[in-house]
């Protein structure tokens, strides 16, 4: 998947957990999930679980800790998709 494809799908994963739809439409790498999108920290685990299901990947603890903004979310998801493809390769 390209970075843009992951971004488009990531928006759908995040959408249920933010009321800031205007900000969501224009997110970029630097958009912070809590500070900018006003996502409650209690929903961060939901986003990780939903991303795992969406991409059929497993996000380990250390990788999950990095997922604080859109850019790091895309990096982690890209990395896990690549690992999955190499394993099934």
């Amino acid at each position, binding site marked *: 998947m390209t970075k843009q494809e992951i971004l488009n799908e990531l928006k759908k994963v995040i959408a249920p957990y933010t009321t*800031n739809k205007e900000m969501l439409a224009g997110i970029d790498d630097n958009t912070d999930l809590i*500070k900018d999108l006003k996502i409650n920290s*209690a929903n961060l*685990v939901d986003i*990780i*679980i939903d991303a*795992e299901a969406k991409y059929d990947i497993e996000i380990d*603890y250390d990788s999950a800790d*990095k997922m604080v903004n859109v850019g790091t979310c895309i990096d982690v998801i890209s990395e896990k998709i690549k690992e999955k493809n190499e394993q099934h390769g």
Partner: protein
Amino acid sequence: MNSTGNDIVSLNAIDITRTKQQRFYSKILAVSESILYNQYQTDITFENFVWLLWSIKESAYKFLQRNKPGLVFSPTKCIVTQLEIPAESQIMNPSIFVLEGIGFDKHPAFKSIVTVGLEALYSRSIVNSDFIFSVVSRDNNFESTGWGIKRIDDTDSNSQSAEVRSFLLEKLQNEFPLHRLQINKNSDDCPILVNGAEEINIPVSLAHHDHWVAYSYQLDSVSSL
């Protein structure tokens, strides 16, 4: 350095089915904490246990992050090593709308020790059928810890932010009537209390979730006023 950290979880906003799924709670609980639950399973439901520990961990993170701005919140690395459940854990009337206090002598509270690396902190938590509220301190007596919980009508983030600020300011303005208090955020996104243009050395912490907002502050440095 002095600090405070608190968190509130609205129990009406959690997904109980999802909370009980191993792939969910394993991202919050350390293995030792899953074992810890076996000691308390007759006193607290598993979903409340998971969110109780989440709120303690989030509070500990906020406490430490004030003095370590780059700290990453890693729930499974904040470990609750001891937990003490009050004899009457459900004693509070679930229909309360506002609750405030200094310390927890008058309120039945869960007590815990939470470790983050080499740091050991203490927590108190109030649990009822509506919410789980936690606050963390470096001292185990909490006699200088002010806290408050309030139900609000609107759940949008702007309302939550405004409500929790006015709730805390109303409390502190009564304590310090000669000051013109405001709550700002510093460059590390931590809430700070200011009098006019000057920061006051009273750490404050804000939390909100769904229809609930909560604050804590630590008065050890009150002499600085």
